[in-house]
């Protein structure tokens, strides 16, 4: 029965597709394969999500080597949620990428683009599904290396430097992670995450364990772009091809958050992370810095993509803020914001990609009067922007609600005030776009623009509609997030 191989199938399919694409050497075939692979991964992920919705765990031994000696793929409600998210984004971006990549990447490189795309997908799904520490590092590097290549394929030559800087910082981060895993391996004698969790309480020498925690935290925070380790993100998002920005903005940092949660709650446990160490306080301080400083920097950006990249850094601050509460509501807020932010930023960057198709670099001085020539795109940006602000009826509101609730439950009214205040910063930069796009006269260059091609527009609007739909009916997303939070806290000691 193929369904018993589901935990590994969604990783294997993209991995097999990659060399096939290289051999085929044809952009169209590569795109078809990439789309097919993304959609089948989505189907598998949804099936897995349904399986673990009641809190059960699916365990799969690779090559039939039983854990903890063999590599185990372990699906519970936490990573099932993430698997659905990543494959969903990949599926939508695959549709979107046809026209976008055709315009932004040289024709002879299309098949290589899609090869890297499926490798990145395989890497991200592998990180989410695996239950083995070193396997996690391997897939982390697979996804990272392929994303370096994807970013470097951008039109602007600055994409090359952006990719290089991301490579340096990302590799340091991954190496820190592998040092952390190595220290844990040395102390517990196992690489299997669940087994580590069982053995850690018995370890008497705690200093290497705490050192491992420190290395893992820094490494993961580099990957998830928590302030001040976010320096690679703005350039990488601004200069990469639009489809890549949309895909990475919606998935890469989210998967890193998952890795953080997995290590903190499943392996180390609350008592070590939040009680013995002031991790909650540190995360809180950095999150607040991210929320305010990044939003403020965003307000002054001239390049629209860069503005929303900084906005992403701020939104990641919300996620880590939710984690820092170490409560059920806080974790629910963080996990639901993973999904909500992915939808919002995916929609935004896809819509901006439609603008960038012919315009190239999008700067505020270049897009005056955009709404007149690209009404659907502009309105989509407004809707997604409202979601960033957190207007009720959009997904952003749901996340804000639970964050403020978590702050009030923790007795930190001042924190609730800070959360809503930072939303007001988002109003400023979203309204900059509204004023420029709707109230200025279109320039020559803008008048020559047309609405984005149907496939791109449809894909972007699927995400925008998702932003509104899941903002009005959040029971599935909040339910999934709450279940995931409960699982994490339940395992924690």
């Amino acid at each position, binding site marked *: 029965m193929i369904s018993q191989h589901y935990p590994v199938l969604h990783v294997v399919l993209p991995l097999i597709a990659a060399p096939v694409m290289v051999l085929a050497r044809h952009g169209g075939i590569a795109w078809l394969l990439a789309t097919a692979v993304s959609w089948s991964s989505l189907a598998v992920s949804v099936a897995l999500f349904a399986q673990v919705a009641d809190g059960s765990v699916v365990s799969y031994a690779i090559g039939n080597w039983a854990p903890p000696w063999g590599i185990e793929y372990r699906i519970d409600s936490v990573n099932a949620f993430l698997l659905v998210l990543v494959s969903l984004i990949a599926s939508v971006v695959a549709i979107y990428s046809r026209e976008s990549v055709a315009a932004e990447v040289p024709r002879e490189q299309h098949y290589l683009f899609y090869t890297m795309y499926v490798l990145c997908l395989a890497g991200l799904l592998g990180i989410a599904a695996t239950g083995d520490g*070193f396997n996690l*590092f*391997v897939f982390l*590097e697979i996804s990272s*290396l392929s994303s*370096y*290549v994807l970013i*470097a394929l951008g039109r602007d*030559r*600055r994409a*090359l*430097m952006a*990719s*290089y800087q991301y*490579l*340096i910082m990302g*590799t*340091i981060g991954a*190496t820190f992670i*592998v*040092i952390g895993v*190595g220290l844990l*391996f*040395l102390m517990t004698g196992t*690489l299997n995450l669940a087994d580590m969790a069982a053995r850690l309480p018995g370890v008497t020498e705690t200093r290497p364990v705490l050192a491992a925690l420190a290395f893992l935290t820094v490494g993961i925070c580099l990957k998830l772009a928590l302030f001040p380790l976010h320096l690679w993100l703005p350039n990488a998002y601004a200069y990469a091809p639009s489809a890549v920005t949309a895909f990475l903005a919606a998935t890469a940092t989210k998967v890193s958050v998952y890795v953080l949660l997995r290590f903190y709650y499943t392996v180390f446990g609350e008592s070590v992370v939040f009680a013995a160490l002031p991790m909650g306080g540190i995360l809180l301080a950095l999150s607040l810095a991210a929320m305010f400083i990044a939003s403020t920097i965003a307000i*002054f*950006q*001239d*390049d629209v993509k*860069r503005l929303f990249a900084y906005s992403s850094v701020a939104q990641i601050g919300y996620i880590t803020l939710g984690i820092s509460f170490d409560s059920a509501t806080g974790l629910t807020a963080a996990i639901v914001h993973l999904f909500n932010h992915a939808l919002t930023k995916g929609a935004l960057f896809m819509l901006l990609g439609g603008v960038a198709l012919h315009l190239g670099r999008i*700067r*505020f*001085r270049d897009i005056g009067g955009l709404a007149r020539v690209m009404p659907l795109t502009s309105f989509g940006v407004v809707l997604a922007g409202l979601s960033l602000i957190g207007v009720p009826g959009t997904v952003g509101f749901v996340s804000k609600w639970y964050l403020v609730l978590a702050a009030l439950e923790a007795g930190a009214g001042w924190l609730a005030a800070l959360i809503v205040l930072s939303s007001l910063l988002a109003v400023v930069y979203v309204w900059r776009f509204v004023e420029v796009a709707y109230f200025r006269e279109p320039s020559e260059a803008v008048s020559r623009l047309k609405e984005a091609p149907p496939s791109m527009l449809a894909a972007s609007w699927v995400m925008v509609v998702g932003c509104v739909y899941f903002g009005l009916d959040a029971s599935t997303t909040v339910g999934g997030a709450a279940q995931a939070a409960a699982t994490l806290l339940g395992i924690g000691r």
Partner: protein
Amino acid sequence: MTVAGHYSYWITIVIAMAGLYIVIARGNLVKKLVGLAIFQTSVYLLYIAPGKLIGGTAPIVAEGFAVYSNPLPHVLILTAIVVGVATLALGLALVVRIKEAYGSIEEDEILGQDPAPPGRTP
């Protein structure tokens, strides 16, 4: 164990810091990659050294031996070396493309060539 007995860890730390220093302090893109490779090498040492157990023999089952060295770290590090090689190759390929695009591989020269980072619209 004595402090000196942990010599493998000391060497690991020295190599790691040397590698990180090169990455941060050098502006030449290729030298940065060299530093990165050195940093990654320290990790290999971190894994492998503790794998050799005191009094342990090669990990092949044989009569009369009770303690075997752990082969798992070697396997892990083979993987890590491959990852490191891939990273280095990718990095160098990027440097080649950067040289073609900018004509230099010094970081400050490259960053100086592009227009200043975009500021506020007037």
